């Protein structure tokens, strides 16, 4: 088991190297000139040249890459071209907001989707199947950015019950920076009003981000549950007189969760991508928001940093899924 985790972590190192290599090659051959972009419009050629040398952009590709990797080992990801701050500082500023949004969405989708899937599995038949099928197709078919806009229009514009965007109301002072998570920091500061404000602001973006997940996960839970319910051990459990809810929740569900779990791991990638849209529509200051602005400014050190963080989160999430596997199904061991 530990060996397996270790092996996966080593794979993570290779993935990081691979990702940086691919991004590096792509960005090396791109038509735009980061040195010119950094110098600003109308800069003198010698000024641009100076910046090029300062940023090391005059070196050949493999030297640039090696330098980058060497700095990476020391936790130095270079400086943002846009703000000139170190990328690692930028990431540290923006990451907590995303770590607040994405797991909340994940948690929410599981809490809704799994019961929904189980309940619909208790009603087999064509009508229920068609409903869950249609719901899944709809959930996956709606563009996240559009859902976000519609949610703003309905819940802020028409009903006026939820805020338009941001992490706190305008004028509210963010809590003292301890973890960067507003939910935790506001509680640490003992400011309940601020905590409530943060929760209200979090709810709509998290709901929007969770919606497609709810659709897919509930669909898969349903079909996986239907599969398990036909198995012999379920019949045995019923035959020995266990209560129906116990048969379903304790016996069947645990095995039925394996398939949705795999999906959830894969869906983390989709959530991270979705967070980019949701964060930009709701002005939520997370790394998706950061990436959105980095794209516009061709701020490649930042883009590289964000991409790397997202990939690492993605790989780690799938590692967690694999570990959960052996908990759910003791037959699986690594």
């Amino acid at each position, binding site marked *: 088991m530990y060996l397996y985790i270790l092996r996966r972590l080593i794979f993570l190192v*290779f*993935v990081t190297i*691979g*990702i940086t290599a*691919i*991004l590096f090659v*792509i*960005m090396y*051959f*791109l*038509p*735009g000139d980061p040195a010119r972009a950094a110098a600003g419009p109308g800069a003198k050629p010698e000024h641009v040249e100076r910046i090029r040398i300062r940023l090391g952009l005059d070196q050949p590709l493999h030297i640039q890459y090696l330098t980058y990797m060497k700095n990476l080992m020391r936790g130095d990801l270079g400086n943002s071209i846009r703000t000139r701050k170190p990328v690692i500082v930028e990431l540290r500023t923006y990451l907590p907001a995303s770590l607040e949004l994405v797991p909340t969405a994940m948690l929410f989708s599981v809490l809704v989707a799994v019961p929904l899937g189980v309940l619909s599995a208790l009603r*087999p*038949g064509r009508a229920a*199947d*068609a409903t869950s*099928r*249609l719901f*899944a*197709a*709809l959930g*996956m*078919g*709606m*563009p*996240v*950015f*559009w859902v976000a*806009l*519609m949610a*703003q*229009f309905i819940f*802020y*514009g028409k009903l006026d019950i939820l805020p338009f965007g941001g992490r706190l109301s305008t004028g509210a002072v963010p809590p003292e920076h301890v973890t960067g998570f507003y939910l935790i920091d506001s509680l640490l500061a003992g400011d309940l009003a601020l905590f409530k404000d943060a929760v209200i602001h979090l709810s709509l973006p998290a709901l929007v981000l969770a919606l497609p997940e709810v659709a897919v996960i509930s669909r898969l839970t349903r*079909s996986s549950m*239907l*599969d398990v319910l036909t198995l012999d051990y379920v019949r045995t459990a019923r035959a020995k007189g266990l209560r129906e809810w116990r048969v379903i929740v304790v016996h069947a569900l645990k095995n039925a969760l394996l398939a949705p779990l795999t999906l959830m791991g894969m869906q983390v*990638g*989709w959530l*991270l*991508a979705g967070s*980019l*849209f949701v964060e*930009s*529509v709701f002005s939520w200051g997370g790394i998706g928001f950061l*990436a*959105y602005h980095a*794209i*516009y400014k*061709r701020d490649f050190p930042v*883009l590289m940093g*964000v*991409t790397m963080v*997202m*990939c690492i989160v*993605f*790989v780690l999430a799938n590692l967690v899924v694999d570990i959960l596997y052996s908990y759910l199904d003791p037959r699986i061991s690594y």
Partner: protein
Amino acid sequence: MLTNSIYAAPETGLRARVRERSGEFVEQARSSFRHNPLGALGLGIILAIVLVAVFAPQLATYDPDKLNREARLLPPSAENWFGTDASGRDVYSRVVYGSRISLQVAVVVMLIATTVGSLLGAVAGFFGGLVDEILMRITDVFLAFPALILAMAVNAALGPGIGSAMLAVGFTWWPVYARLVRSQVMSVRSHPYVEAAICIGATRRRVLFRHILPNCAGPIIVQMTLDAGYVVLTVAGLSFVGLGAQPPSHEWGFMVSQGANHILTQWWWSTFPGLAICVLVVGLNLVGDFLRDGLDPRLSRTVV
């Protein structure tokens, strides 16, 4: 219907055989659609959108790119069914013409991804060994990324535009097909007819492209339909963040982003193009679902 073909006096000749076969096919399709009416719905949606794309000039009520200062930001009405945008262009006509772009996106991206993926996957699966090992490790690295993020980086590098958006998404989508084709090739490779082809002296290229690849087509086609929806969403997303289609394009995702700042006051501008994306992607998802069930009987059995 089927009973007819069994009990009726047997007709002779090729034409009769063709008629019988196509009758069976129609019957089969009808029965599958009865079993899964949503598949029929999905197919209907896609056919409708293809028709809209083909007959766009007839269906549009205005020139989609014609500016009209007098008709800016009008709400939906009898003249402008979906209202007008800030330049006075008719949103309905733009949505109608936008169907051409989105269908083209789906086809082009799938072609790029399947061509690259099939080629690499086939080579890896057929030759095995070191080639396989190297190609699959590269594929793993690609699969370890969320596709949209990589597509964004590639798109940003290629420069904004719908063409580079399609290239970027195609470039990030091939690993799925490489994996799929590899596993298919490896299972088909061991069939006796492949051995037979090798025995009669066919070259390796001929065996791979004439004997093995055509027999891997089923799962690839299913995967393509399942992916087409995601691809349309991804390209629309790239347009939404400003990397894909550029003004004055009537690409749907781009129109949503243009109307985004007006969502509270002129809701129709973003709403209708977004709805169009929904309809197309839902149609593709339903057809993909349907085809997968048809291909894998085990899956369709599970959904009672």
